[in-house]
């Protein structure tokens, strides 16, 4: 019986790490920022932690903290020029940023190991740690959503002019969103580094970008459940059947097209909205019945 679970452990570990990344992508989109840079921040966090471990023998806790800080710092700095852009321009800029990080990574072979990547990172992070951090990250995003910052993000995303007219500082909030996104990505990048012996630059490029984006698109961009459900579904799906695993990318591609066209809110959020609407209708019907009697 325990073998059954042991077989799926690596998948679960992957899920925990990718929850963090999905949440990182989620929070920037929530604030109306069309950033796809999470993959780059993850790489920055991973390499910071990895280099500290391999070249300086740093303690994993220090490594992870530095990875988180590095991600947060870079994201915050990036938000300054990006504040002047909107929509596709922001998206392109963040994709260019990913590419710059990739190119610099390969160019700075001495530090990062170049295309061959960084090896011999001590594996000090296990499933337990990952679960704890995944839970903490989920709590963080959930708490933000319920509070004033989440409300401000929401407003900015839907109508900037209204947000400004109500006293919400768009610049400050979007910078905050970037910072949180970068911190989360950096954190889980660091955890990934200490979890998998070796990292290489290709891990943090377009493949990761598309994967993370898929989680959020598929699950939903509205509630915290969205990225969690999306990641769960998309990670489990290829495991259900061989042909699914072999054609993973095609399925992701088709899914992106179908979901954004027919269920733009994402599967989880559309379901949640349907439930809410049904509850509202029931409440109405009850009120009408009471009024009549």
């Amino acid at each position: 019986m325990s073998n059954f679970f042991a077989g799926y452990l690596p998948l679960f570990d992957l899920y925990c790490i990718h929850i963090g990344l999905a949440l990182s992508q989620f929070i920037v989109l929530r604030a109306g920022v069309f950033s796809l840079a999470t993959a780059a921040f993850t790489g920055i966090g991973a390499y910071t932690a990895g280099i500290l471990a391999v070249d300086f023998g740093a303690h994993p806790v220090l490594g992870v903290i530095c990875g988180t800080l590095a991600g947060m710092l870079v994201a915050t700095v990036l938000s300054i020029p990006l504040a002047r852009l909107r929509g596709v321009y922001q998206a392109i800029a963040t994709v260019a940023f990913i590419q710059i990080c990739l190119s610099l990574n390969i160019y700075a072979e001495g530090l990062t190991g170049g295309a061959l990547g960084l090896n011999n990172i001590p594996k000090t992070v296990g499933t337990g740690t990952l679960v704890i951090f995944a839970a903490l990250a989920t709590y963080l995003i959930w708490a933000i959503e319920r509070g004033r910052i989440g409300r401000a993000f929401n407003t900015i995303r839907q109508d900037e002019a209204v947000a400004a007219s109500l006293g919400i500082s768009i610049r400050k909030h979007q910078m905050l969103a970037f910072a949180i996104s970068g911190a989360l990505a950096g954190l889980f990048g660091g955890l990934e580094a200490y979890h998998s012996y070796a990292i290489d630059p290709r891990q943090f490029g377009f493949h990761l970008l598309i994967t993370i984006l898929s989680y959020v698109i598929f699950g939903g961009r509205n509630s915290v459940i969205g990225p969690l459900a999306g990641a769960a579904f998309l990670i489990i799906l290829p495991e259900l059947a061989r042909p699914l695993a072999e054609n993973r990318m095609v399925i992701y591609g088709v899914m992106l097209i179908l979901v954004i066209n027919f269920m733009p809110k994402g599967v989880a959020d559309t379901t949640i909205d349907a439930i809410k609407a049904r509850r509202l209708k029931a409440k109405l019907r009850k009120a009408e019945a009471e009024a009549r009697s």
Partner: protein
Amino acid sequence: MTSLKLANLSKRFGGVVASENVNIEVPAGKIIGLIGPNGAGKTTIVNMITGMLPVSGGTIQVGDVDITHAPAHEICRSGLARTFQNIRLLGEASVLDNVMIGLHRHETSSTLSALLGLPASGRETAALKIRAMKLLADFDLTEFADYPAGGLSYGHQRKVEMARAVATNPDFILLDEPIAGMNNVESDALAEIFLGFARDGKGVLLIEHNVRFVAKLCSHVYVLDGGRLISEGTPEHVLSDPAVITAYLGGEDA
């Protein structure tokens, strides 16, 4: 007594003069009207006041605070709220949520407690909900609290927008063509609300096309045409001013 003062306000786009030498004063507790034919430059004035458009010359002051060059989000903090011509509610959010955002300005919990979901933030959210519900009750909107705002009738959406603007606890309210597309019953209901604003001591700047509505409500009216003020005074005075009639109906050569 404080007032909202526009002094010698002007706006130039390159060589084109959109507004010039506009002087308007909105004292607290009064409803002031701003009318003018299409293209007169009313929207330009509104955008300058609310910080959406940079000012080329002149000043805008709320009481003692100079907001001429203040960024849009600081305008609200200086006590000026606005409504939009085309009702910009957050369509998918509930009516309650829409009004709650109006209360954002008053939130004092620290960023940290908001980030981590500390009890202080939770308490504040609960308190805000109560305040928002009270506002909805003031506007007779309690039954719609959980509805998505986009699903309400036009008249009700306008009221939600008013509630949201009032939630910011402003000293001055800028109403940008609030009764466009309404029948008399709906607009009369809104008129009552506006009179309520004035009774509460707020200064109201009402920008409208419906001259009769403006004449009924306002103690003082300004007329804009071609970016300049061509008349001002009591409604009776302005409506019988030949310059105003010409602007609206065209001159002798028209």
